[in-house]
């Protein structure tokens, strides 16, 4: 018992340092971050600032996503109003009808159904389509590759603007046969990726990203950054968080706001940061995230994520989890991340629990529960699950509420395994010999029947 107590004393001091350290730092960081926080914060999402980060279709889609997933009616209407305004600038009557239906007259006559606008747009679209068709036919009879490519591209743009994503994808892909330079190929790929992301078909995204990367000429940095983002999104969607994190971390600073029709640099920081936290080990986290100069620029855009990563690395789990808790409601409104928030959060929490216990011989579970802002019983359940999964090598003293590290006895384990393997071999070989004997019998029988 002496040895255990000796070991647990420094533990408690250490833990107290953890706890107080976290509390001390908390006000400092939160005041310094609140000022330059454009999007995500503990407060309700600032929709206007958020929408300002994006352009094109994704802006509308994101706004509508917020309207669908938000409980706050004020925010809902705000999002719908902005989506309405945005759609009016474009030509997508399909989305227009959807939004008007969602608004349902709640925003007054200015945001009611404008049938006249719809019909003019649709009439114009008909004319434009006919014009494009005749142009394309003319190009095709002349067999000028570049013109045909342009024709199909125009068609793609046209369909995309009108919301016919499937047709747009087909038209863009058709330009492939008429591409003459690698620049054209990259343009084709980027278009295909854009449409695929809108269609939520991420397998296409992956294949077109790799196609673009295979072009012989060196890509310019913004394009590389765009491709990285697209690949990261695809991995995220496929729940391959580690790969997603690596891709997002590779994104170069050249991205800027150039890819606002898909992703904002703030998103790169959030997605990359959370995925990295959930899937990387400590050294990887240090080398690839915290010491990564490129990525640091991105993190500056979302200081809360930066802070929580730093907190996690310096073992201030309480404040780290608090940041995560604050972020959660807004992340749930993110069109790409909402599906993965729970999993990522669980993984991060488990990682934190594992890392907390790692250096100690024994841990007082009451202190630990404080550090993680949970009850001892709840903590015991979580720890039990992790131990059963073999993620923590420890055993719980439920009576005294202490967690003891368990160091696997390599020697005993080896002996055990050797004996087990021996037994298995023994059994397998005997069964095999028996089967071969039976097969032989079968052979003999057949042979004797023949003669």
């Amino acid at each position, binding site marked *: 018992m002496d040895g255990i107590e000796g070991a647990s004393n420094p533990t408690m001091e250490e833990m107290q340092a953890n706890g107080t350290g976290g509390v001390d730092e908390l006000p400092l960081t939160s005041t310094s971050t609140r000022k330059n926080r454009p999007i995500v914060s503990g407060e309700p999402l600032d929709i206007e600032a958020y929408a300002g980060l994006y352009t094109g279709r994704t802006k509308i889609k994101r706004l509508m996503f917020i309207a669908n997933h938000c409980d706050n009616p004020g925010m809902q209407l705000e999002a719908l109003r902005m989506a309405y305004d945005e759609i009016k600038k474009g030509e997508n009557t399909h989305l227009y009808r959807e939004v008007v239906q969602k608004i349902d007259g709640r925003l007054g006559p200015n945001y009611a159904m404008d049938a006249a606008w719809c019909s003019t747009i649709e009439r114009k679209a008909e004319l434009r389509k006919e014009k494009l068709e005749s142009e394309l036919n003319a190009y095709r009879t002349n067999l000028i590759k570049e013109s045909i490519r342009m024709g199909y591209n125009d068609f793609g743009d046209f369909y995309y603007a009108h919301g016919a994503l499937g047709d747009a994808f087909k038209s863009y892909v058709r330009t492939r046969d008429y591409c003459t330079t690698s620049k054209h190929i990259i343009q084709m790929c980027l278009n295909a990726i854009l449409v695929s992301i809108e269609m939520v078909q991420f397998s296409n995204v992956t294949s077109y990203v790799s196609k673009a990367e295979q072009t012989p000429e060196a890509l310019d940095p913004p394009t590389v950054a765009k491709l990285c983002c697209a690949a990261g999104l695809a991995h995220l969607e496929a729940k391959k968080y580690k790969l997603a994190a690596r891709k997002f971390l590779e994104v170069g600073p050249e991205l800027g706001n150039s890819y606002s029709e898909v992703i904002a640099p703030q998103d790169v920081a959030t997605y990359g940061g959370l995925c990295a936290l959930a899937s990387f080990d400590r050294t990887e986290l240090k080398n690839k995230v915290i010491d990564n100069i490129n990525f640091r620029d991105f993190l500056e855009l979302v200081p809360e994520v930066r802070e929580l990563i730093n907190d996690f690395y310096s073992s201030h789990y309480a404040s780290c989890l608090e940041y995560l808790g604050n972020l959660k409601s807004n992340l749930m409104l993110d069109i790409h991340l909402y599906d993965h928030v729970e999993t990522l959060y669980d993984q991060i929490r488990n990682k934190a629990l594992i890392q907390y216990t790692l250096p100690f011989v024994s841990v007082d579970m009451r202190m630990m529960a404080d550090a993680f802002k949970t009850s001892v019983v709840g903590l015991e359940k979580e720890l039990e699950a992790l131990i059963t999964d073999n993620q923590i090598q420890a055993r719980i*003293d*439920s009576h005294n509420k202490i967690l003891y590290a368990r160091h696997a006895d390599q020697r005993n384990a080896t002996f055990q395994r050797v004996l087990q393997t021996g037994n298995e071999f023994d059994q397998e070989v005997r069964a095999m010999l028996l089967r071969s004997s039976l097969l032989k019998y079968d052979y003999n029988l057949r042979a004797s029947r023949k003669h």
Partner: protein
Amino acid sequence: MNSVEGLVNQIQGLSTTASDVLSLQNLLKQADDSLHAESTRLLPFLDQLDPSKHSLGYLYFLEACTAGPVTKEQAGSYVLMIARFITSCIAEQIRLAPDKFITVCKRFKDQVLLLEEPLRGVAPMLTAIRKLQSSSEHLTALHPEFLLLCLLSRCYKAGLSILEEDVFEVDQPRDLFLFCYYGGMISIGKKWFRKALELLHNVVTAPMSTVNAIAVEAFKKYILVSLIHHGQSPTNLPKYASSVAQRNLKNLCQPYIELANSYSNGKIADIETYVEANKDKFESDNNLGLVKQAVSSMYKRNIQRLTQTYLTLSLQDIANRVQLNSPKEAEMHVLQMIKDGEIYATINQKDGMVRFLEDPEQYKTCEMIEHIDSSIQRLMTLSKKLNGVDELMSCDPLYLLKAGRERQRFDFDDFDNVPQRFNI
């Protein structure tokens, strides 16, 4: 009449040297039909023969005598006679006519069963096996009969002596199927689940061209024993199992597969309602007891899992986590498991706490070293045997004929390594 008397004289004369016995064997083969024709009158002649000297002749006479239907009274005297013959006969002589000997022994078993005294058959049958088999690796047709008698007389211990021997040579696949099936049941009776699993595994994975009832019943027990022993159902049959077994066995044992599925979910209440609902099916298969054992093994499995996670845990918590009704019940379970050596723990009755300990085995004792050494020796002989069989196989003309043919069909490039066709 004369011929029988002559035959008796010849038997008495020709039973000493090996060459004489061979010629006697030919004579007896020729006389077999006439012996059967006069089977009713043969009994008195048996007294003129000495089973310990004229074993071969005695065997032929005995076989002819017992061929007809038998009444209960007759059976009593026959059983005595055959038992005496089995204990005193000469192994070399009866091995010349193994079929006759097996037939006699099988009739002996039937008669013992007719008398409803299976215990009387156990010892003679074991002697019969020993006399008939050429080596301990040889599986005779009498093995399953012996195990059946053991099972019926609940004399499991006697059966274990046979089961401990490794069997490699098989005359009839049916013998092996029955041997392993009965052996599995005996091992289950002795709660020797590892062995039972191995034997049943042999039945299920044995090569077969059509599904047979023995394999189906064995598969049912295989699932249950696997649940008891490993705490999980056998996921899939291994690749070397015959395709017939892989395709059909699961469909034929649906209630058991579902039981295993509900076992893996880990909810005791679910599995108990399932067993209750399908009680009739399990009962008609005579597996209800085993099913109940499987269900109760779930508590053990859950308690064992707790030892991995906890150092101390109150009995109340154990009861909650393992879904037992009261701490008292939990205490009984834990106590039983400590007794059986399945977990290492101490119970503190004052606080109602259980303290789980590590496995005290340190692999340092002489016994352990000896055990490991003997395992190594056993595995070495086994590997040698494997190599021997492999060599034999690669010299087997039948095998080479087939392999050569396939070689020719698939590999044109390297047929110079192996001749395409062997005609020996």
